[in-house]
């Protein structure tokens, strides 16, 4: 955290956003503050500001994504950047062009920022070592999804004022969730207490060495938490048979109306989307008064604007300052 009494001497230095693990609380807070400054642009009649005019952003997506890809495109557009969509489904592993060759080709086209989603943990890190453009991680395997983590803490901060002392549960397939990991880093760095909730078969190794608690029982946790983030069951990532049936999973880990009755009245219900209605969350809860799921989507654009803005400023060698209004 920033030292008390110290005014904004902080300068954003990172030209890449690879993950939240390596960010300090001060950096995260600075990015969130920057995002807050950008909220106003999205509220304008003409939703545009000029800071990335003439810059080229490439959406390099090796995995299916609609929400995140569009959110990044929208964020880039609002800052007046040009966006090229580059979707290469299933081309990631050892056949055809390698990731680095793809990246070098893109760079030869004069890109400024690559937004990459890839099924391999560490792919953005690899990219950042070999190209000059800024690299923004839009999800790598089950390692990190930093802008999701940022939009989650942004959403919580907006509603609760601060994360300090909040109790947060993240529920579902922790093993294969990049959202769980990015959330964990961001939330704990900002002072929240995080509990991973899921069946033991979906909890990763050595979780005891992470700054979180673990529970196998949503019923034990539901009453205590201020925020609950329900992860999507990603059938495409599940190996083998980590739980016997969807029915049994929902019974133990679904956020039902029944369970919500025992929750704090002001609990925030979050979900990174897309929702499997009736599986990890009942429709009535997803659409209910405690749900901030759609605010998360709105805030996603804002946080991604701040991300693109800051990495670009860092690459240009200019100190990034919040441009308010």
């Amino acid at each position, binding site marked *: 955290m920033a030292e008390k009494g110290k005014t904004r001497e902080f300068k954003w230095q990172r030209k890449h956003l690879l993950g939240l693990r390596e960010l300090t609380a001060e950096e995260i807070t600075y990015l969130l503050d920057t995002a807050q400054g950008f909220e106003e642009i999205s509220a304008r009649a003409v939703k545009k500001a000029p800071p990335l005019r003439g810059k080229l952003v490439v959406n390099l997506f090796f995995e299916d994504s609609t929400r995140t890809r569009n959110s990044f495109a929208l964020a880039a557009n609002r800052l007046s950047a040009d966006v090229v969509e580059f979707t290469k489904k299933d081309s990631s592993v*050892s056949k055809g062009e*390698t*990731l680095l060759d793809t990246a070098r080709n893109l760079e030869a086209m004069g890109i400024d920022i690559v937004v990459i989603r890839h099924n391999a943990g560490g*792919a953005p890190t690899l990219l950042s070592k070999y190209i000059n453009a800024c690299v923004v991680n839009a999800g*790598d395997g089950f*390692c990190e999804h930093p802008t999701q983590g940022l939009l989650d803490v942004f959403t919580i901060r907006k509603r609760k004022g601060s994360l300090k002392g909040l109790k947060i549960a993240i529920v579902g397939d922790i093993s294969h969730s990049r959202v769980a990991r990015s959330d964990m880093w961001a939330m704990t760095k900002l002072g929240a207490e995080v509990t991973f909730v899921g069946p033991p078969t979906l909890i990763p*190794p050595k*979780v005891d060495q*992470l700054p979180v608690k673990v529970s196998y029982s949503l019923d034990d946790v539901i009453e205590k938490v201020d925020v609950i983030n329900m992860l999507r069951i990603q059938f495409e990532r599940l190996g083998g048979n980590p739980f016997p049936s969807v029915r049994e999973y929902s019974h133990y880990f679904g956020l039902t109306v029944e369970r919500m009755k025992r929750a704090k009245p002001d609990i925030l219900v979050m979900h990174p989307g897309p929702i499997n209605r009736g599986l990890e969350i009942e429709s009535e809860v997803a659409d209910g008064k405690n749900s901030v799921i759609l605010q998360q989507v709105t805030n996603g654009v804002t946080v991604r604007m701040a991300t693109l803005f800051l990495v670009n400023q860092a690459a240009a060698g200019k100190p990034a300052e919040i441009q308010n209004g």
Partner: protein
Amino acid sequence: MGDELLIKNGHVIDPANKINRKCDVLIADEKFVEVGHVKKPVANVIDATGKLVVPGLIDIHVHFREPGDEEEETIASGSAAAVAGGFTSVVCMPNTTPPIEDETDVEYVHRKARKARKTHVYTMGAITKGREGIELAEMGFMAQAGAVGFTDDGNGVQDVSVMLRALKYAQMFNVVIAQHCQDDKLAGKGVMNAGYYSTILGLPGLDPLAEEAMLWRDIQLVKKIKAGTVRYHAQHISTAGSVELIRAAKKQGLPVTCEATPHHLLLTEKCCAEYDTNYKVNPPLRTQKDIEALKEAIADGLVDALVTDHAPHLQSEKELEFLAAPFGLIGMECALPLYIKALIEPGILDWPGLIRLMTEKPAKIIGVDKGTMTKGRQADVTIIDPNAEYKIDVSAFRSKSKNCPYNGWSVKGRVETTIVGGEIRFSHE
């Protein structure tokens, strides 16, 4: 007498003959003639003052990629790298493309090695056809052609009934069955040790249990057929749990041996934190606790051979995502100084102890008359400057591949001269 060569004034270490003192080594007609104080005048003399003179080093676990992946390594380039690392004998693993699975394949390796004329190249044959773990390969014919053991290395033999059959059948030829212990179901799609780092890096983990479960299973098989001449060798063991299994098996007097690599003694899973694929290796780099257990095992005499698992890969393959890059790292040309760093410098082994695990003991595992300076044996010698200090320079390696994580490491101990069959095959300039 034909060509004579005298190595004078070196400190000779020949553990099998309990020699550990300053003396001379006389070689004639490609064989050892005398180890002692040689008075007679000899035309060819190597002055080994201040150097260690040891039986030629033996590495029973290398991948020379030929046939199939000659872009990565050939038997010729691998042999050149071997003698530069002080190795006068190596054992190639049969996981080439196609694999070494019949006698013509074995003869092919030998022919290429003779042509290279650097180091002695032995090969193991595949345990099963196509290394698929289903049907036994022709072990008899391969053994006759000179295969020094059998392994499906790269794969473990998954089917317990096939493994039992292999161990039983191999007794006919008194050859070792070597296993890359890994239960594929438990291993899943793992690419690094399952632990804290795999969790935060978001990479699928290889559970230590995948190694230990198969090793435990194999030891039960060996126990069952103990009465015969079965010989089982656990390749590149990497976990504290494996050490305990080996300890228990040896305590029971079972015919079980094992080997270790430099990387499992010097590097941990933490090395993978930057997604550098030069640290992607199978078995994966484990934890400090595993390193301590392996070192303790070596100190206790439980490890029978120090190997390299030299596994060359192209830069273009290693420049892939950690998930997609192939497993393996190279190490023949820096193995000796790395073992000095891992084992001699911290006092785990003395020099005779180290040399024994790089000569006499591995020779026994593969059943060849090597690894000693006994009179009449083929004269393979490695001369070492134990005090030379330098930095490892991967760009100077003879290996065709450069996938080595030790570049720039400061080390002590250098191979000065490598003599194979009485002929100098490598000299440090």
